[in-house]
């Protein structure tokens, strides 16, 4: 919201913060960025057995301009890394990144010339969900932790380079 830039640093907002954070965390829209095996577990999480729509992620937007959560599900190869960075930069602020699976967090099983050893070498990551592939319950746990993290955001105050308030 453009209101954030207009608020001077010396103002503390409490109820507005809580309301905005509540709205943001309950309706994050994920970007459909499934790469490999973890994508199938992500699809299973959206499926009726472990329904993810209960947490507000009803729609999975294919376009990065309309999404605010990027779940990197799967191994990121060297050829795909620039594309991932471009997609991340196309997303509007505020945005969050969940790195799902071992291959996205740290390179996983594959430690060789072709796989980027951890997606946090190119984008800043908020929550790491380990597993190969992580169970849907693990992914839901990661999303709930992300919601706790969003709760701590503040509207007024300094902003970091991702458009989110710190301090």
């Amino acid at each position: 919201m453009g209101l954030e830039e207009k608020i001077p640093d010396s103002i503390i907002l409490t109820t507005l913060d809580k309301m905005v954070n509540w709205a943001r965390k309950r309706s994050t829209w994920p970007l459909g960025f499934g790469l490999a095996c973890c994508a199938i577990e992500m699809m299973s999480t959206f499926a009726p057995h472990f329904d993810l729509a209960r947490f507000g992620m009803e729609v999975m937007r294919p376009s990065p301009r309309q999404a605010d959560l990027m779940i990197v599900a799967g191994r990121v190869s060297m050829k795909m890394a620039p594309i991932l960075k471009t997609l991340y930069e196309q997303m509007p602020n505020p945005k969050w990144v969940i790195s799902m699976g071992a291959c996205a967090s740290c390179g996983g099983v594959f430690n060789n010339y072709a796989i980027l050893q951890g997606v946090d070498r190119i984008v800043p990551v908020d929550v790491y969900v380990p597993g190969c592939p992580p169970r849907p319950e693990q992914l839901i746990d990661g999303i709930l932790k992300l919601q706790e993290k969003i709760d701590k955001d503040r509207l007024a105050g300094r902003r970091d380079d991702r458009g989110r308030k710190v301090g």
Partner: protein
Amino acid sequence: MSMAEQVRELLKSRFGEAVLGEDDFRDQQSLYIDPEAVFDMCQALVADADLDVKYLADITSVDWYGVEEEVRKGRFEVIYNLYSIRHKYRFFLKARLPEDKPEIQSLTSLFNGAGWMEREVFDLMGIIFVGHPNLTKILTPDELEGHPLRRDFPLTFEVPQFSWNKDDPPEVIR
């Protein structure tokens, strides 16, 4: 006559010296051939109506770097996996290429499916297929130089960081 004998008959009678040897490891017929004759042999096999060998299952390559007695015969080996659907019979044609000139004729004019298989062998092993319409990289990124599946290309294994080696991670080359 069994299929193995028929194939051997056809190839030996038409291309006598180009068939350098034969092997029967685990009941699989493999014929070692001269790389110059690969295209003509495949053409003869496809044209023969009895054998009905029209299915090229796979083209693959092996790098024998490091194994001394094999490198003497030729460092690279290109293996053609041919199958006959009517007779349900599979056999292999294996050709050796020297290290300094790894070139062999392409089979794209006979089999359409050979296009991508040969591109992959070129990309990962560096064998040049003469006559291929579009011999470019297919799997590795454009910035990667070299051919990854050769035995002297390093695996580029990165040593993980623990508390005792928190400074720059060196690459361990295997």
